[in-house]
């Protein structure tokens, strides 16, 4: 249970990085990636995954 970032759509704005409650988002190469081992889809923290809620490009932070 984790989300991933579609690299080709990522604008690398980094909002997901600082909204993530698990520090699962890191910058790598030209875009951000989500460490599936750390991602909890925000269960227990927030009603919805924060990366997907803040991402400016639709369909970019999606379930694996």
């Amino acid at each position, binding site marked *: 249970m984790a989300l991933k970032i579609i690299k080709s759509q990522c604008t690398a*704005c980094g*909002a997901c990085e600082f909204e993530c409650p698990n520090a699962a988002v890191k910058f790598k190469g030209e875009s951000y990636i989500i460490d599936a081992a750390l991602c909890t889809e925000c269960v227990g923290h927030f009603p919805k995954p924060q990366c997907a*809620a*803040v991402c400016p*490009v639709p369909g970019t932070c999606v379930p694996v």
Partner: protein
Amino acid sequence: MTAGLVTLGSLKVASREDLSQSITGPEATGCKATACGSSGGPADMDPATWARVKDHPCYSEEAHHYFARMHVAVAPACNIQCNYCNRKYDCSNESRPGVVSERLTPEQAARKVIAVANEIPQLSVLGIAGPGDAAYDWRKTKETFRLVSAQIPDIKLCLSSNGLALPDHIDDLVAMNIDHVTLTINMLDPEIGAKIYPWIFHDHQRLTGIEASRVLHERQMLSLDLLVARGILVKVNSVLIPGINDAHLLEVNREVKRRGAFLHNIMPLISDPDHGTHFGLTGQRGPTAAELKAVQDACEGGAKLMRHCRQCRADAVGLLGQDRGQEFTMDLVPEQVAYDPAARAAWRDWVAHEREDRRAAVAEAEAATRAEVAPQEQPLLVAVCTQGGGRINQHFGHASEFRIYEVDARGVRFVTHRRADNYCTGGAGDENRLAQVIRTLEGVPVILCARIGDCPRDDLAAAGIEAIDTHAHDYIEPAVAAVYRARKAAPAATRTA
């Protein structure tokens, strides 16, 4: 006299005398002495406020002739979506808010600011205007300001924000001595907001529709109130979107003035399908120059209006109306740079004297106009080619924008600037460019420039526009007043009759 044709931005500053010489030409060394000792600001501003804005090109029309700003694009994250914004797209030939060519870390940004300060002595302001929201991406904004102000303590710090996250950082803003904040406020009415903002991200939730705009509006008013209460100068930017908020902006103007905004800047929507924005893709058009001026004029008497905004990029560098950002990309900035304050100090020293001289020249010219021209004479619009310093010092062929002044017996007023290069022109040739310039100058019968070739002069004349280069390197306002007097002065016989 080509010797005086220098680019202000590339001046190497050695002394005040060198500056005078390179700007005004070899025959005009030193200040033309004036007895006026006033250091006060324009008549409509109290001295304390003037002291805070006089070196800020975005807050003072007068300052933008002398001082430069730079934006560093350290804050790409945003907490709202605007229908006029799509940050996926960038074109280095484009100039509009939110557009950048490279994003910087705070450390890179600090190095770049120092490199620019060493090269551009006019630099007085560091702004962070995104490309996202500077107050939402606060950690990067704050770290950049901290690094820069440690090395250049007298640089003015300012930021732009939509106001949603700003109340969370108000204590930080005050502690960091951030003196100027620009809030983008496009509406008071959430029903109108819903047509501009599809969603916001606030308190860990994505809100949509009218609720999103209701929360955004409340936070924007809270930001404005907090900033005013803490003594920070606030400029409000509003994007004029025809058919959506054009009439509503009068209410916005009244409300932000009532709450203490210092300046209101009503900017035209920039909309093009190629920008990939919602408005661009759905055919929402921007306002015409006449529509923009109509809304601005209707707001006169409310919050003081800014009319010299260039809607610059989030990584712009230089005097307003010029962008030297491409000279300072990170690959061109040295790994190690040490700040040398000498050039900026010399510039400020020179400007202090130059300003007095110019102010006296303006007063003298306006007095002459009042004496020679009947008060009921129609006003005249005059276009000016300048590259800064408050002088007519640009070749017509080099001008990509024109400053438009209105003159009548009451005086000379800056009205607006008109750009002839707003967007990528797709490699249009010179013929097309002159045609574009002539369209840009519609309704303006006179243009003042430092020099102009015979061909464009004839083409302009055929279009009913008189090009004048005999005022080369003079101060703008006195030259505009002289042109007006030459056209309108009553014959001596009737004046004395």
